[in-house]
């Protein structure tokens, strides 16, 4: 049986907790943080704030947040030269962003978009979506201990499942791996549109 307290949170609860965590990291009242708020433009986030938010989300939800951003992961898969040329995102890159980060306003994804602008498009909903994806990935893990077949629980302090019977531990899927799978899943849709 899955750890119901963590893996079966309702979307509303997840959203509220993410809003609270981002508000706390940015030293703002939670009323100022909306799913549509831009981290940089509206909340003034800098690179260290992104990391701070990721750490807090990891502790709250017991997940492993990705360390690479969407375009970094996509570049590893598609080849950077296919996604970014001379600092500008290619048509393929724009299509991937539209599919992979649906919370971004499509009106912003226009030809000539520079890669350094993408980070400014991160909104609170980006974090909510990623947390939900990671929680789903965790919920779908096989919790049977590979050593003794007992049911494993979330570790209270590490990104892993722990067997209460034999003490064995299994790491949670990394956020980068989970989102890479997501990227692969949208690849065919993007390729279809490109034809």
């Amino acid at each position: 049986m899955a750890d119901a307290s963590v893996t079966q949170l309702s979307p509303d609860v997840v959203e509220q907790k993410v809003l609270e965590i981002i508000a706390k990291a940015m030293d703002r009242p939670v009323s100022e943080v909306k799913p549509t708020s831009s981290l940089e433009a509206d909340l003034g986030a800098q690179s260290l704030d992104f990391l701070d938010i990721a750490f807090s989300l990891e502790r709250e939800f017991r997940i492993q947040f990705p360390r690479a951003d969407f375009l970094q992961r996509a570049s590893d898969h598609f080849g950077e030269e296919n996604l970014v040329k001379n600092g500008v995102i290619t048509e393929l890159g724009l299509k991937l962003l539209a599919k992979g980060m649906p919370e971004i306003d499509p009106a912003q994804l226009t030809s000539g978009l520079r890669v350094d602008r993408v980070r400014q498009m991160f909104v609170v909903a980006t974090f909510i979506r990623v947390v939900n994806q990671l929680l789903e990935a965790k919920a779908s893990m096989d919790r049977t201990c590979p050593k003794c077949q007992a049911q494993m629980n979330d570790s209270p302090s590490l990104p892993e499942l722990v067997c209460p019977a034999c003490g064995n531990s299994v790491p949670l899927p990394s956020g980068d791996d989970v989102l890479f799978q997501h990227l692969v899943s949208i690849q065919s849709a993007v390729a279809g549109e490109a034809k």
Partner: protein
Amino acid sequence: MPTLQGQSAIVTGASRGIGRAIAIELAHEGAAVLVNYRSRQEDAEAVVCEIRRAGGTAECYAADVASEADVRKLIAFASNAFGRLDILVCNAGVVRDNLLGAMKLDDWDAVMQTNTRGVFLSIRESLPHMMSQRSGNIIVLSSISAERGGRGHANYVASKGAVNAMVKSLAVELAPRGIRVNAVAPGIIVTEMTNRIRNFAGAEIMAQIPMKRLGQPEEIARAVRFLASPDASYITGHILNVTGGFGL
């Protein structure tokens, strides 16, 4: 009131030598201390006993700082045991001296693994705690040799030079979160680690020390305690030489 009352500290490589002295000094100043060791369990337990006998709080935990999994467990243990993490002292270090032309790759790697990678891992895994607290103190044990170089330990010198550069970078990176990052660079201190160099080149070394004596681990520990304390509240990115004037 002790200056570190209510704070918690991890000291890596604290079963003996300078690390041991630092653990005892921080505990004396009121911090709850996690004594990390790699293999010398009895020595680490003796440090814990000494701290507890003096009325302090301490635990010990085995972890190889070069192992990512070990370091994660070490930091989680400290966080669970003490509820917070205020001070990280990256002290664990090894030497594998030889002339570079005769140095085995294993000797290069072993030194870089513990002295440089170990510092990286220890700091990285501590950051989630310190960043959420909006405060923290990171103190890395460097060496005066990082500045001066020296025959027969290019690997050690390189590892400590890397650490000095890391300290300066991190001081900038982490200042917005109230985390200070400094290093202490000891000269020649009376420990097991310096036995060989003291035996082989004792007179030559002494001639270069204006204070005409070797340092004691406790003198390094007091410098670490100072950097960890509110007295050093405006100091970050600093490499504090504690050398008796060695090489001046």
